[in-house]
């Protein structure tokens, strides 16, 4: 015998102690202890109709649609399959005349008061009620009484409308709000036949996650403004893709009709988003279809940007680059951006930079962390959500990576994990945290020290797996303090893993692909010193995104040649020499890398706006005009080149990605730790506040601003002080105050906010209104402000 194959028996996985065998409709089915019958039946292909059951929420057994017969000691019993656990040897029937009668009966009752709205209902065509009425219903209704009537529809939030006549009271939306989002602002009111879903009086259902209720509503009772009446489900075409609005990388379907993006729906990706999306990710497709999108290249002539053909614009861009190289060498060319595109876009631009010898390259906007954060043992989102202890040393995840916030909230609520929070301002997770420490900017290492010296915390941390979630908590503070605290945490907690939470959709992919050889702040300083002869921004708006407003303003003014690749005109590129229109999300193929390093596929659904081109193609064409050959003729070729050249991407072949829609984790990073010493922040003057600046979910970023449903949700600029500090100042909540920094002062609204630490002042970044960045000096380790009443 020459074969070395093992016999099939030896290949069997060890017997699962939780496995049970049940019989459904005469067939044996493998199930797991504790699982509901309906879940086992879903896997065995015996579809049981349902309305209230949702696999990602607790069962409530309210609609009674999922009745089945289970063999019992006194004959068959009718039970709800969504709340009856499987048991070894259980015999289940979903197909007897009794079960059929029960299904018909419940459906007839649900339809009794249901309006005959199907022809005008958004849900028609994909409606579980309509579908199951056909498949499991009685065929006709014998209900001849007058139906229930309510005013329809009523807005329950800025985005969501509720039609109570269509509601079948399944408790999915209310359960979601309470159980998943933790924003229990919708609930049932009244009783019996008058039960309704409502918001509390004068309190709209303001949740970052409201769109999920629309997706899980099994009828057309909840509708979302951006999609209402836009299409019929049978006209929608869909492809699976990944949201790149932030770096959670939620799996979605991208849906369009007549070549227009109309809807994103969450896909249940077990390692990532569990089918949930945040509203910003769900609804910012509106920006893709915006009339303000750049449709053709623009070239400056006589001081203004005017439309030009691609060949003219590209040639102009190429000559700007060669002039710059001729003047000061390739080291006088800078490339910023690339964190919002695909891995392929980033790799093509990184290849361009390498081929030309460009070294001033960064994909972050001075608002992230250095790439040495990837040098530590990396954790996945799922590992974080199952860790014994999660140490939070970063931004408010609810504002920056919303669905990761949901996953960690769930970990805490289900008692899997204890959250140990270190933050500069209370966050969305503070009330779920096991301990929460508010530290003053610059003092995270001291906070780490005293935290780990606490015997209770030390015991907790020693009791099992630890994941440190690390990101940039404060844009008005140097990242060195966070990196130092991270170093101390990892050194003191053996086996701790790190989940870096950098915000932009593909920032990790861009960094791995090679788009971060320096730091944007360095590039801007070089520009001010006259060392940058040409700046290329790739989907980047430094003026809006770099925290230090003065630095970026002076740098942009000093730059004599600016080539911008973007989807919109922005504050940064309105004075550029060449603006090349870029293809947006949904208009291009490729792959993306999320915060944990998971690479997934993106898919094109609609044709590009105007003559826009994907970023990678622009890099290749520009290189070509400069006499550099990048051997990448298609997005596939870019991908293949990336797989062979970038060690992190070695395992993400196109073939493998097609087979694994949940994605593949990048291979271990080549980065090394940076153990350099940190500065010591100077003492804060008596009447000064240490400044904390961080992001809100909705801001003045282009994708929000150009989405009509989201733009009004940006809270606007304001300086937030603790109520006691505000008292001491003698200013009224909402008054205008003068905020004085080292370099300048600005006038802005002041807000009383108990979630702010005393002695610090917090402001949201990049909001409509006064720019808080005026008070941020990137040279300072921390920034202080004084506040005066007017």
């Amino acid at each position: 015998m020459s074969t070395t194959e093992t016999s099939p028996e030896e290949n069997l996985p060890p017997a699962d102690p939780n496995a049970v065998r049940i019989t459904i409709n005469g067939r044996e089915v493998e199930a797991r202890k504790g699982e509901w019958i309906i879940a086992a039946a879903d896997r065995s292909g015996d579809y049981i109709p349902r309305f209230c059951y949702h696999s990602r929420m607790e069962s409530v057994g309210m609609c009674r649609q999922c009745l089945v017969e289970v063999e019992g000691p006194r004959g068959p019993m009718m039970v709800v399959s969504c709340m009856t656990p499987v048991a070894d040897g259980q015999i289940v029937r979903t197909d007897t005349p009794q079960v059929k009668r029960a299904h018909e009966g419940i459906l007839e009752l649900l339809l009794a008061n249901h309006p005959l709205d199907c022809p005008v209902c958004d849900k028609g065509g994909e409606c579980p009620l309509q579908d199951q009425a056909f498949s499991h219903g009685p065929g006709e209704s014998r209900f001849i009484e007058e139906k229930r009537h309510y005013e329809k529809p009523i807005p329950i939030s800025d985005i969501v409308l509720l039609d109570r006549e269509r509601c079948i009271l399944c408790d999915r939306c209310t359960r979601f709000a309470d159980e998943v989002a933790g924003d229990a602002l919708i609930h049932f009111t009244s009783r019996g036949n008058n039960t309704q879903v409502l918001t509390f009086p004068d309190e709209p259902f303001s949740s970052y996650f409201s769109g999920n209720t629309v997706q899980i509503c099994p009828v057309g009772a909840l509708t979302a403004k951006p999609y209402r009446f836009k299409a019929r489900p049978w006209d929608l075409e869909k492809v699976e893709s990944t949201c790149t609005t932030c770096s959670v990388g939620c799996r979605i379907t991208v849906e369009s009709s007549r070549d227009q993006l109309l809807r994103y729906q969450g896909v249940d990706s077990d390692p990532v988003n569990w089918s949930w999306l945040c509203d910003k990710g769900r609804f910012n497709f509106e920006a893709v279809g915006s009339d303000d999108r750049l449709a053709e290249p623009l070239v400056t002539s006589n001081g203004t940007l005017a439309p030009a053909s691609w060949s003219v614009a590209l040639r102009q861009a190429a000559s700007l680059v060669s002039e710059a190289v001729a003047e000061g060498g390739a080291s006088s060319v800078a490339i910023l951006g690339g964190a919002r595109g695909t891995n392929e876009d980033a790799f093509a631009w990184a290849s361009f930079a390498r081929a030309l010898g460009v070294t001033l390259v960064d994909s972050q906007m001075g608002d992230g962390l250095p790439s040495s954060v990837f040098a530590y043992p990396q954790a996945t989102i799922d590992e974080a959500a199952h860790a014994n202890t999660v140490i939070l040393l970063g931004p408010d995840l609810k504002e920056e990576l919303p669905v990761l916030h949901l996953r960690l909230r769930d970990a805490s609520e289900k008692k899997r994990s204890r959250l140990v929070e270190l933050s500069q301002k209370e966050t969305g997770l503070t009330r779920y945290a096991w301990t929460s420490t508010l530290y003053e900017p610059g003092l995270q290492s001291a906070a780490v020290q005293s935290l780990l010296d606490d015997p209770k915390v030390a015991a907790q941390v020693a009791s099992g797996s630890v994941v440190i979630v690390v990101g940039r908590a404060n844009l008005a503070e140097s990242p060195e303090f966070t990196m130092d605290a991270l170093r101390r945490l990892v050194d003191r907690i053996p086996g701790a893993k790190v989940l870096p939470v950098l915000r932009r959709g593909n920032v990790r992919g861009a960094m791995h692909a090679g788009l971060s050889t320096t730091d944007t702040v360095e590039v801007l300083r070089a520009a001010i010193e006259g060392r940058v002869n040409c700046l290329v921004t790739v989907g980047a708006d430094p003026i809006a995104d770099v925290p230090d407003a003065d630095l970026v303003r002076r740098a942009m003014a000093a730059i004599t040649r600016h080539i911008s690749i973007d989807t919109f005109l922005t504050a940064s590129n309105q004075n550029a020499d060449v603006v090349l229109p870029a293809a947006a999300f949904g208009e291009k193929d490729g792959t993306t890398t999320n915060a944990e390093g998971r690479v997934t596929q993106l898919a094109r659904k609609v044709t590009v706006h105007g003559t826009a081109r994907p970023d990678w193609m622009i890099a290749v064409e520009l290189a070509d005009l400069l006499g550099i050959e990048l051997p990448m003729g298609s997005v596939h070729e870019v991908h293949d080149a990336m797989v062979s050249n970038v060690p992190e991407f070695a395992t993400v072949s196109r073939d493998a990605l097609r087979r694994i829609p949940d994605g593949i984790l990048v291979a271990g990073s080549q980065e090394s730790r940076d153990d350099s010493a940190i500065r010591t922040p100077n003492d804060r003057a008596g009447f000064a506040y240490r400044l904390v600046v961080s992001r809100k979910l909705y801001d003045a970023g282009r994708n929000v601003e150009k989405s009509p449903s989201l733009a009004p949700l940006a809270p606007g600029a304001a300086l937030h002080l603790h109520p006691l500090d505000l008292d001491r100042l003698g200013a009224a909540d909402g008054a205008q105050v003068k905020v004085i920094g080292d370099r300048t002062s600005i006038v802005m609204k002041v807000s009383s906010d108990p979630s702010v630490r005393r002695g610090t002042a917090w402001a949201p970044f990049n909001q409509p209104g006064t720019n808080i960045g005026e008070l941020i000096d990137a040279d300072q380790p921390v920034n202080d402000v004084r506040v005066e009443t007017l």
Partner: protein
Amino acid sequence: MLGSGAIMVMDHTTDIPRAALTLTRFYAHESCGKCTPCREGGTWLERILSRIVDGKGTDADLDQLFEVGESICPGAFPHASSSKLGLAATPFPYRMNTICFVGPSAYAPIHSALTLFRDEFESRVTKRHRIPVTSSGATS
């Protein structure tokens, strides 16, 4: 026996359909609204029965009462025996599609009244007038 298991004594002058309506209305009103059969079924039963009591019912409505009841409590439903009708009793328990006993309790009075006194319901439908009564039914 009617309703939830409480025993009520009524004499021959009692208007049975109206008494059943009073009890059904009570349980339909008591529904918490959580589960479909009780929330929708209880009120539906009440509305059909009140039409019958008002002399506006049809033969089909009488069967419909059992049909709606079947969606609340499938299969055989308990009732007392009747020597007049030559009917044996059906014992407890019953099967139910609801979460709790409120929904079945809305059906129970209708089921047993209609099983044991169907003629009184039929006369409401066919003669369209009321049997003279002295009591408006067992209210509590």
